[in-house]
């Protein structure tokens, strides 16, 4: 099966400024691709390039197996949902949804049928006669989705569609988009700066920074095996702990030495033999530093740490300490006995540890 979207060697310049550099992405039908990165990383520009709203400087872009590099947006068989919803303010909800069909000369009976179908699907039937100005943020969001759904395109494009909603509604709509994707089996490209949205929605994530793709992979790959320090730090909340450490290899595994604040060391052992330089940065997720009682795997190695701050978060309690000169967060039991200023015995699980080179920031294992 040919990929539904295939971008090869795409470059985008504004004058002499390179906005996107050597982008290569492809997704299969039914994939949910999320482009994620900090603001200004070029993710929205890339989406606009896919939509055909921005011309690309070089490279090729295929949608559904056809070369769409120089095709105008209306002929790309795509639908797009915008951050500001971009509903036509003078048209009723129904007219907003059917505008595209009207422009393309679809007969009125079909328009009406599709409108009713989509209105039912999104539960916006009572709103059809209203104007966008009379709708709440969540309702506008639904209408914008309706306008995209009614096209039944090869590819759906979403440009930060949830960022104008309040926190609660955002979570609701997130679930709704996910279930929509599952029910339709549609192919989607979704731009967000919110890494949680990226993790929950995607079947495939592209992490971008400065117009360059940092890593492409499934949410699990991105989370467990970040390709570099940027991805490690960007994905996950609280962020992955990135601790400078020294390694020493001998026959039965790798010893990792981490400096405590008082100068003493924690020595951990990675059972696998690794070919690592002496200075590394190790990446450990907060959930892999836990109370000994809670630690799930037997791989946990215990060490005493001086806790600086305790942050209860309801389901968990986060403990912040200082290791290797960095703040390190551990995810503890909600009813943990740890107190600030006291020493706590913690269990380090190195099963999913990442090693990064301090100079290049690249993953070593």
């Amino acid at each position, binding site marked *: 099966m040919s990929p539904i979207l295939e971008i090869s060697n795409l470059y985008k310049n504004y004058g002499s400024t390179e906005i996107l550099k050597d982008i290569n992405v492809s997704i299969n039908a039914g994939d949910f691709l999320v482009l994620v990165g900090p603001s200004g990383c070029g993710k929205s520009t890339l989406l606009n390039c896919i939509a055909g*709203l921005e011309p690309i400087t070089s490279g090729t872009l295929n949608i559904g197996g056809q070369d769409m590099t120089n095709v105008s*947006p*209306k002929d790309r068989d*795509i639908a797009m949902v915008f951050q*500001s919803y*971009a509903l036509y303010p003078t*048209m009723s909800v129904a007219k907003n949804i059917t505008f595209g069909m009207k*422009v393309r000369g679809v007969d009125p009976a079909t328009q009406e049928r599709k409108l009713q179908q989509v209105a039912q699907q999104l539960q916006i039937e009572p709103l059809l006669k209203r*104007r966008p*100005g009379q709708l709440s943020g969540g309702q506008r969001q639904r209408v914008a989705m309706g306008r995209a759904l009614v096209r039944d395109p090869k590819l759906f494009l979403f440009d930060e569609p949830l960022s104008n909603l309040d926190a609660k509604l955002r979570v609701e709509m997130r679930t709704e988009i996910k279930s929509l994707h599952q029910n339709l089996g549609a192919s989607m490209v979704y731009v967000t700066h919110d890494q949680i949205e990226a993790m929950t929605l995607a079947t495939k994530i592209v992490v971008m920074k400065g117009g360059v793709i940092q890593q492409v992979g499934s949410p699990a790959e991105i989370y467990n095996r970040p390709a570099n320090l940027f991805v490690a730090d960007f994905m996950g909340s609280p962020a992955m702990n990135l601790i400078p450490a020294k390694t020493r290899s001998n026959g039965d595994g790798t010893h990792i030495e981490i400096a405590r604040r008082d100068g003493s060391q924690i020595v951990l052992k990675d059972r696998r033999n690794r070919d690592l330089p002496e200075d590394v940065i190790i990446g450990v997720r907060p959930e892999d530093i836990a109370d000994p009682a809670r630690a799930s795997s037997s791989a946990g190695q215990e060490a005493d740490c001086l806790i600086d701050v305790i942050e209860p978060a309801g389901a968990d309690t986060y403990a912040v300490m200082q290791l290797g000169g960095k703040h390190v967060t551990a995810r503890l039991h909600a009813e943990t006995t740890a107190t600030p200023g006291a020493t706590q015995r913690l269990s380090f699980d190195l099963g999913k540890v990442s090693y990064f080179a301090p100079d290049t920031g690249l993953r070593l294992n």
Partner: protein
Amino acid sequence: MTDLTLTPVQTRQSHIGKAVLRWSLYILLGVFALFYLMPLFVMVTTSLKSLEEIRTGDLVALPREVTFEAWRTAWSSACTGIQCEGVRPFFWNSVLIAIPAVTLSTLLGAMNGYVIAQWRFRGANLIFSLMLFGCFIPFQVVLLPMARLLGMMGIAGTIPGLIFVHVIYGLGFTTLFFRNYYVSIPAELTKAAKVDGAGFFRIFWSIFLPLSLPIIVVTVIWQFTQIWNDFLFGVSFSQAGTQPVTVALNNIVNSTTGVKEYNVDMAAAIIAALPTLLVYVVAGKYFIRGLTAGSVKG
């Protein structure tokens, strides 16, 4: 801080002070209003008096006997030079000039504003600045080149020629109005319409123009007032038979021989001014309605 130290007596005094201040303000404003209304009052009363009464009576007195004779004369038989048909034919000239010129300049301005604000192209800002510059060029500067241009186009001294002049001269302002209005409309709206398959003109007609009622009204009021009240272009680029009402009014007032018919002059002046007044009254209402339409209508 001072409030804390005020005694009740001082507070009462400050209340009285405020009331006095307020009422003096009202009185002052009232005096100003009367001052500005005075000329209109004199014009209306004079136009309703007979010549006999004007000669003998007081300038600000109400007419003893109301007569519409002066209005009839001004409309259909007052002399503008050798022709004695009143302002009627010239009034229609003005209508024939103003309506197409206002419509065209507004439409073109809307289109220009739409292109400059929403279809950013290389040099868009430069072109906009140049058009803006055009707003500030005095009329007199363009008179001679425009006369030559009209001659070359073969429309010198004709009504289409005057329409052309007014459209060109109005474009700077109308473009400015529409550009500033459209620049506040998010670019995503255009993008959404492009994805929906709409082209340049479709987006303009179906999405931008329906949004523009308030700014259309503002532009129409502005352009109509400018074009209807214009005298310089009217007197420079017209000939007998195509002169607008402003030029005719001047001729009526200046070309009377013998007794000066003040009542006819006043009536003619009011007739010449009525349409702009009408546009303000009618369009002003739509202006308010246009602003609130989206929020109230179902």
